[in-house]
């Protein structure tokens, strides 16, 4: 199962992330996780939010360049070496990870992965019995 991630194009300008976060907040959209990728003159903010479709709509209304991307969110134990095992499965099947970000809380860690091949990646995770989160799990 994949999850829809929200991606927002941002110029490198002070206060710009704030504008995104405020807009989401005003519309009652909660953020579960996000990461910021940056280049010298622009950045891409990637977020997992409570309502992607609504987020796209409200941000577009504010003239942001926004898109949603399918990603995989997996859950593993918050212990040393747990993620390494899973990434090893993916590498063995030649699945390349374009980017990933993660957060850990209590005994579980959630990892957002954007692989080059979603289907293949899911198949590997399924076969190895990894926990892949769905929209409602977050």
């Amino acid at each position, binding site marked *: 199962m994949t999850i829809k*991630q929200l*991606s927002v*194009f*941002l*110029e490198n300008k002070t206060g710009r992330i704030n504008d995104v976060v405020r807009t989401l907040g005003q519309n009652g959209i909660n953020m579960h996780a996000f990461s910021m*990728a940056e*280049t010298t*003159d*622009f950045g*891409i903010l*990637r977020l997992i939010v409570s309502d992607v479709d609504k987020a796209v709509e409200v941000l*577009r209304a504010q*003239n*942001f*360049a*926004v*898109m949603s*991307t399918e990603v995989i969110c997996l859950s593993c134990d918050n212990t040393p070496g747990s993620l390494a095992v899973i990434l090893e499965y993916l590498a063995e099947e030649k699945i390349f990870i*374009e980017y990933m970000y993660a957060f850990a809380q209590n005994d579980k860690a959630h990892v957002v992965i*954007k692989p080059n091949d979603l289907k293949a990646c899911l198949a590997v995770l399924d076969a190895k019995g990894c926990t892949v989160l769905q929209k409602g799990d977050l």
Partner: protein
Amino acid sequence: MFWNENKECMPREQMRELQGKRLQKLVTYVYHNVPFYRKKMQEMDLSPDDIRSIDDIVKLPFTTKQDLRDNYPYGLQAAPASEIVRVHASSGTTGNPTIVGYTRKDLAIWSEVMSRCLTAYGVTRDDTFSVSYGYGLFTGGLGAHYGVENLGATVIPASTGNTEKHIRLIRDLNITGIACTPSYAMYLAEVMEKMGLTKKDLGLRIGAFGAEPWTENMRKEIQDRLGLKGYNIYGLSEIMGPGVSYECQEQNGSHINEDHFFPEIIDPNTLQPLPYGQQGELVFTTLTKEGMPLLRYRTKDLTSLIDAPCPCGRTSVRMTPIMGRSDDMLIIRGINVFPSQVESVILEMKEFEPQYMLIVDRKGNLDTLEIQVEVRRDFFSDDIGAMLALKKSLSDKLKSVLSISADVKLVEPNSIARSQGKSKRVIDNRKLV
């Protein structure tokens, strides 16, 4: 010192008479050899016989850059192809460059007027003179080159680039004069200082600077750092190239070689001629040109003309420094750039909104050009590599169209100010006037 005292110091009345005769001949020539002008004159119910003196020039039609573009490549050429011995080209606003063909006589006149300029600056046959304008389709390099040769001085065709080697040549070959853009002169001073040399190590005494606007402050700085005296040289490829006008030792306006290039100032809106002293758009008629003669060519340069006698003894009309343009052309690092060129590139790429902004600045001594473009909401990609590739693809296309590199900045949709009327596409932060 004069190169051609007879022409440069000709009494005004005599000059007007000469101009009138040349104009009559020119109009007859273009009427019979350039269908474009014949048609225009016929539409205005004008025949060559209606031109009896230089005062009648106001009856003639104007020529614009658009006309040159519409008649690309050789539509305005008057001389048969067999008489053309050289072609130069300058950048067009969109697509077609302007092609200018020269006959052997045109080149001789070009060398003559360049020799007048150089002599006014104090160059003699004992000088060794470096030409550091670009050689090639641009008129700067070859135009200055043949002027130096015609005068009898030694020319060093250094062109641009390899500045350290150039500075060593200036020192080792006792180069006394240089022709280049004022910004290149500043760069030369910088490199010289970095090499641990001072102006005393170099024997430069004369600089012929042009192809881009420059200020009195820049003049002072260049003179101070290179130990030379810097003179303005003005020209444009449509009319001839460098050598249309030049400063004398007085450095108070540039004398126009008006036995060859007849100047007028017009109101760019009403197209009515303006009297001496009033600022407007500079218009030239090429009185003696054979290859591509032009009637009343609108340069779009804003200036005024001074007809008061100059203490140097020259009687020719002078033009004041260019105060700006009546169109949106920018001169960046000596290259003509039109916002419409940028627009044409952006319109071809569906990933961008048709919105852009050019930000021109001068950092150190180098002009910089930043081009901001809006990413279209529906073409934005989550993949940074793809976004960077998109940016590079735009940079490459712009470079091939503009001939200079620009710093592309991708901005958010709707972040460039929209306006109801004529949109503002350029922010020029250089202080040049």
